[in-house]
Protein backbone atom coordinates (compact mmCIF):
# COMPACT_ATOMS: atom_id res chain seq x y z
CA UNK A 1 0.00 0.00 0.00
CA UNK A 2 1.48 3.36 -0.94
CA UNK A 3 1.29 6.24 1.44
CA UNK A 4 2.40 9.65 0.47
CA UNK A 5 3.90 11.85 3.10
CA UNK A 6 4.21 15.56 3.47
CA UNK A 7 4.60 18.38 6.00
CA UNK A 8 7.08 16.79 8.33
CA UNK A 9 8.16 18.22 11.62
CA UNK A 10 10.76 17.05 14.07
CA UNK A 11 10.52 18.01 17.73
CA UNK A 12 13.01 17.24 20.49
CA UNK A 13 11.85 15.32 23.58
CA UNK A 14 14.31 16.28 26.25
CA UNK A 15 12.30 18.10 28.90
CA UNK A 16 8.91 18.63 30.53
CA UNK A 17 8.43 21.61 28.27
CA UNK A 18 9.07 19.46 25.19
CA UNK A 19 6.23 17.15 26.25
CA UNK A 20 3.87 20.12 26.36
CA UNK A 21 5.11 21.28 22.95
CA UNK A 22 4.73 17.81 21.45
CA UNK A 23 1.13 17.56 22.69
CA UNK A 24 0.31 21.01 21.38
CA UNK A 25 1.85 20.22 18.01
CA UNK A 26 -0.17 17.01 17.65
CA UNK A 27 -3.31 18.80 18.77
CA UNK A 28 -2.84 21.46 16.14
CA UNK A 29 -2.07 19.01 13.34
CA UNK A 30 -5.01 16.74 14.12
CA UNK A 31 -7.32 19.74 14.27
CA UNK A 32 -6.06 21.01 10.91
CA UNK A 33 -6.48 17.58 9.34
CA UNK A 34 -10.10 17.47 10.47
CA UNK A 35 -9.95 14.77 13.15
CA UNK A 36 -13.01 14.72 15.40
CA UNK A 37 -12.54 16.08 18.90
CA UNK A 38 -12.51 12.58 20.38
CA UNK A 39 -9.97 11.34 17.81
CA UNK A 40 -7.82 14.42 18.42
CA UNK A 41 -7.87 13.73 22.13
CA UNK A 42 -6.96 10.08 21.61
CA UNK A 43 -3.97 10.86 19.41
CA UNK A 44 -2.72 13.67 21.65
CA UNK A 45 -2.99 11.36 24.67
CA UNK A 46 -1.15 8.55 22.89
CA UNK A 47 1.54 11.03 21.83
CA UNK A 48 1.87 12.21 25.40
CA UNK A 49 2.45 8.65 26.63
CA UNK A 50 5.01 7.81 23.95
CA UNK A 51 6.83 11.12 24.24
CA UNK A 52 7.09 10.70 28.00
CA UNK A 53 8.39 7.15 27.59
CA UNK A 54 11.10 8.40 25.23
CA UNK A 55 12.00 11.07 27.78
CA UNK A 56 11.78 9.01 30.97
CA UNK A 57 12.81 5.52 29.88
CA UNK A 58 14.82 6.41 26.78
CA UNK A 59 16.74 9.29 28.29
CA UNK A 60 15.37 11.74 25.73
CA UNK A 61 14.53 11.46 22.07
CA UNK A 62 12.49 13.05 19.33
CA UNK A 63 9.08 13.04 17.68
CA UNK A 64 8.60 13.21 13.96
CA UNK A 65 5.21 14.05 12.47
CA UNK A 66 4.06 13.54 8.94
CA UNK A 67 0.78 13.91 7.16
CA UNK A 68 0.03 10.74 5.24
CA UNK A 69 -2.59 9.86 2.67
CA UNK A 70 -3.82 6.53 1.52
CA UNK A 71 -6.39 6.32 -1.23
CA UNK A 72 -7.72 9.78 -0.50
CA UNK A 73 -7.91 9.24 3.26
CA UNK A 74 -5.70 11.54 5.26
CA UNK A 75 -3.92 10.67 8.45
CA UNK A 76 -1.16 11.60 10.81
CA UNK A 77 1.91 9.50 11.45
CA UNK A 78 4.02 10.05 14.55
CA UNK A 79 7.40 8.48 15.12
CA UNK A 80 8.92 8.55 18.62
CA UNK A 81 12.53 7.49 18.85
CA UNK A 82 15.29 7.44 21.41
CA UNK A 83 18.74 5.96 21.81
CA UNK A 84 18.13 4.65 25.30
CA UNK A 85 18.45 1.16 26.77
CA UNK A 86 15.73 -0.32 24.55
CA UNK A 87 13.04 -2.78 25.59
CA UNK A 88 14.23 -6.34 26.24
CA UNK A 89 10.80 -7.96 26.50
CA UNK A 90 8.27 -6.29 24.22
CA UNK A 91 5.35 -8.53 25.12
CA UNK A 92 5.85 -7.71 28.77
CA UNK A 93 6.18 -3.96 28.10
CA UNK A 94 2.96 -4.05 26.06
CA UNK A 95 0.91 -5.77 28.73
CA UNK A 96 -1.41 -3.71 30.91
CA UNK A 97 0.08 -2.79 34.24
CA UNK A 98 3.69 -3.72 33.61
CA UNK A 99 6.13 -1.02 34.68
CA UNK A 100 9.85 -1.12 35.37
CA UNK A 101 9.53 2.16 37.24
CA UNK A 102 6.77 3.55 39.36
CA UNK A 103 4.23 4.32 36.66
CA UNK A 104 0.89 2.62 36.14
CA UNK A 105 2.27 0.59 33.25
CA UNK A 106 -0.59 1.76 31.04
CA UNK A 107 1.26 4.11 28.71
CA UNK A 108 2.43 1.72 26.01
CA UNK A 109 -0.57 -0.65 25.90
CA UNK A 110 -2.93 2.30 26.30
CA UNK A 111 -1.34 4.25 23.46
CA UNK A 112 -1.67 1.16 21.28
CA UNK A 113 -5.42 1.09 21.88
CA UNK A 114 -5.79 4.80 21.15
CA UNK A 115 -4.41 4.73 17.61
CA UNK A 116 -5.25 2.90 14.39
CA UNK A 117 -1.77 1.54 13.63
CA UNK A 118 0.99 0.86 16.11
CA UNK A 119 4.43 -0.70 15.89
CA UNK A 120 7.47 -0.85 18.15
CA UNK A 121 11.01 -1.46 17.06
CA UNK A 122 13.33 -2.05 19.97
CA UNK A 123 15.88 -4.37 21.46
CA UNK A 124 18.09 -4.23 24.48
CA UNK A 125 20.84 -1.70 23.94
CA UNK A 126 19.49 -0.43 20.63
CA UNK A 127 17.08 2.35 21.52
CA UNK A 128 13.35 2.37 20.88
CA UNK A 129 11.24 3.57 17.99
CA UNK A 130 7.45 3.61 18.22
CA UNK A 131 5.44 4.47 15.12
CA UNK A 132 1.73 5.25 15.27
CA UNK A 133 -0.74 6.33 12.62
CA UNK A 134 -4.37 7.39 12.82
CA UNK A 135 -6.67 8.21 9.96
CA UNK A 136 -9.29 10.88 9.65
CA UNK A 137 -12.65 9.13 9.75
CA UNK A 138 -15.08 9.85 6.99
CA UNK A 139 -17.25 12.57 8.49
CA UNK A 140 -20.91 11.73 9.08
CA UNK A 141 -23.28 12.94 6.39
CA UNK A 142 -23.87 16.64 7.07
CA UNK A 143 -27.38 17.32 8.32
CA UNK A 144 -27.92 20.57 6.54
CA UNK A 145 -25.90 22.76 4.25
CA UNK A 146 -22.91 24.19 6.04
Amino acid at each position, binding site marked *: MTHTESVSARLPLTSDLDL*VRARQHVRQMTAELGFSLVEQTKLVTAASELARNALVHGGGGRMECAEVTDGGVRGLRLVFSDDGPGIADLDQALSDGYTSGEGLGMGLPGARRLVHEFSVDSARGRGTTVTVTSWVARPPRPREGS
Partner: protein
Amino acid sequence: MTGEAAPPPDGYVPVLRLGGILLVTLQGDLYDSTAERLRQDIGRTVSDDAVTGVVIDLSGVEIVDSFMGRVLSDIAAMTRLLAAQTVVAGMRPAVAITLVELGLTLPGLRTALSTEEAMNLLGAEVANLPRTAGARRERP
Protein backbone atom coordinates in the same frame (compact mmCIF):
# COMPACT_ATOMS: atom_id res chain seq x y z
CA MET B 1 -10.36 31.77 18.41
CA THR B 2 -8.21 33.48 20.98
CA GLY B 3 -4.60 32.39 21.12
CA GLU B 4 -4.03 29.85 23.85
CA ALA B 5 -1.64 31.32 26.37
CA ALA B 6 1.43 29.19 26.98
CA PRO B 7 1.55 27.90 30.55
CA PRO B 8 3.85 29.98 32.72
CA PRO B 9 7.23 28.27 33.12
CA ASP B 10 6.71 27.26 36.71
CA GLY B 11 3.04 26.46 36.31
CA TYR B 12 0.17 28.00 38.18
CA VAL B 13 -2.87 26.26 39.56
CA PRO B 14 -5.39 28.36 41.46
CA VAL B 15 -6.51 26.74 44.70
CA LEU B 16 -9.48 28.25 46.46
CA ARG B 17 -10.56 27.51 49.99
CA LEU B 18 -14.32 27.44 50.53
CA GLY B 19 -15.03 26.52 54.11
CA GLY B 20 -13.74 22.98 54.55
CA ILE B 21 -13.44 22.40 50.83
CA LEU B 22 -10.51 23.03 48.52
CA LEU B 23 -11.45 23.95 44.98
CA VAL B 24 -8.57 23.29 42.60
CA THR B 25 -8.96 24.51 39.03
CA LEU B 26 -6.75 22.84 36.44
CA GLN B 27 -6.45 24.55 33.12
CA GLY B 28 -4.73 23.94 29.82
CA ASP B 29 -1.71 21.73 29.45
CA LEU B 30 0.06 21.05 32.72
CA TYR B 31 3.76 20.41 33.05
CA ASP B 32 4.54 17.13 34.80
CA SER B 33 6.42 19.11 37.43
CA THR B 34 3.39 21.33 38.02
CA ALA B 35 1.16 18.31 38.55
CA GLU B 36 3.74 16.83 40.95
CA ARG B 37 3.87 20.05 42.93
CA LEU B 38 0.10 20.26 43.02
CA ARG B 39 -0.02 16.83 44.64
CA GLN B 40 2.38 17.98 47.34
CA ASP B 41 0.57 21.28 47.89
CA ILE B 42 -2.80 19.58 48.27
CA GLY B 43 -1.34 17.02 50.66
CA ARG B 44 0.12 19.75 52.82
CA THR B 45 -3.02 21.86 52.83
CA VAL B 46 -5.31 18.94 53.63
CA SER B 47 -3.16 17.84 56.56
CA ASP B 48 -2.51 21.32 57.92
CA ASP B 49 -6.01 22.72 57.81
CA ALA B 50 -9.34 21.17 58.54
CA VAL B 51 -10.10 20.30 54.93
CA THR B 52 -12.88 17.74 54.51
CA GLY B 53 -13.11 17.70 50.75
CA VAL B 54 -11.14 18.46 47.60
CA VAL B 55 -12.85 19.35 44.33
CA ILE B 56 -10.66 19.22 41.23
CA ASP B 57 -12.21 21.11 38.35
CA LEU B 58 -11.06 19.48 35.11
CA SER B 59 -13.40 21.34 32.77
CA GLY B 60 -10.49 23.31 31.30
CA VAL B 61 -8.30 20.27 30.75
CA GLU B 62 -7.94 18.88 27.23
CA ILE B 63 -6.13 15.64 27.99
CA VAL B 64 -5.52 13.37 30.95
CA ASP B 65 -2.77 10.83 30.32
CA SER B 66 -1.46 8.09 32.60
CA PHE B 67 0.81 10.53 34.40
CA MET B 68 -1.98 12.97 35.20
CA GLY B 69 -4.26 10.04 35.99
CA ARG B 70 -1.75 8.79 38.53
CA VAL B 71 -1.48 12.23 40.12
CA LEU B 72 -5.27 12.40 40.45
CA SER B 73 -5.45 8.90 41.96
CA ASP B 74 -2.65 9.72 44.36
CA ILE B 75 -4.40 12.87 45.50
CA ALA B 76 -7.58 10.88 46.12
CA ALA B 77 -5.71 8.18 48.06
CA MET B 78 -3.83 10.73 50.10
CA THR B 79 -6.85 12.81 51.00
CA ARG B 80 -8.69 9.63 51.98
CA LEU B 81 -5.93 8.80 54.45
CA LEU B 82 -6.40 12.26 55.87
CA ALA B 83 -10.13 11.61 56.23
CA ALA B 84 -11.12 13.86 53.35
CA GLN B 85 -12.80 13.15 50.01
CA THR B 86 -11.75 14.04 46.48
CA VAL B 87 -14.22 14.63 43.69
CA VAL B 88 -13.16 15.30 40.10
CA ALA B 89 -15.57 17.63 38.37
CA GLY B 90 -16.41 18.57 34.81
CA MET B 91 -14.27 16.11 32.89
CA ARG B 92 -14.84 16.67 29.17
CA PRO B 93 -16.54 13.79 27.34
CA ALA B 94 -13.61 13.36 24.91
CA VAL B 95 -11.25 13.09 27.87
CA ALA B 96 -13.45 10.54 29.62
CA ILE B 97 -13.79 8.39 26.50
CA THR B 98 -10.03 8.48 25.97
CA LEU B 99 -9.32 7.54 29.58
CA VAL B 100 -11.46 4.44 29.29
CA GLU B 101 -9.67 3.33 26.14
CA LEU B 102 -6.30 4.09 27.70
CA GLY B 103 -7.36 1.67 30.42
CA LEU B 104 -7.22 4.07 33.35
CA THR B 105 -9.88 3.30 35.90
CA LEU B 106 -8.79 5.98 38.39
CA PRO B 107 -9.53 3.93 41.50
CA GLY B 108 -11.02 5.86 44.37
CA LEU B 109 -11.81 8.90 42.29
CA ARG B 110 -15.35 10.14 42.43
CA THR B 111 -16.67 12.24 39.63
CA ALA B 112 -19.31 14.91 39.21
CA LEU B 113 -20.56 16.69 36.13
CA SER B 114 -19.87 20.14 37.53
CA THR B 115 -18.14 21.81 40.43
CA GLU B 116 -21.55 22.72 41.83
CA GLU B 117 -22.57 19.07 41.85
CA ALA B 118 -19.23 18.15 43.43
CA MET B 119 -19.64 20.74 46.17
CA ASN B 120 -23.16 19.51 46.87
CA LEU B 121 -21.93 15.96 47.02
CA LEU B 122 -19.25 16.85 49.54
CA GLY B 123 -21.48 19.25 51.46
CA ALA B 124 -24.14 16.60 51.84
CA GLU B 125 -21.62 14.10 53.12
CA VAL B 126 -19.98 16.53 55.44
CA ALA B 127 -23.40 17.34 56.87
CA ASN B 128 -24.05 13.66 57.48
CA LEU B 129 -20.84 13.05 59.34
CA PRO B 130 -21.14 12.91 63.10
CA ARG B 131 -19.82 16.21 64.31
CA THR B 132 -17.13 16.25 66.92
CA ALA B 133 -17.92 18.04 70.16
CA GLY B 134 -17.80 21.76 69.79
CA ALA B 135 -18.02 21.76 66.01
CA ARG B 136 -21.12 23.51 64.88
CA ARG B 137 -22.63 24.01 61.51
CA GLU B 138 -24.95 26.90 60.79
CA ARG B 139 -27.81 26.08 58.50
CA PRO B 140 -28.64 28.82 56.08
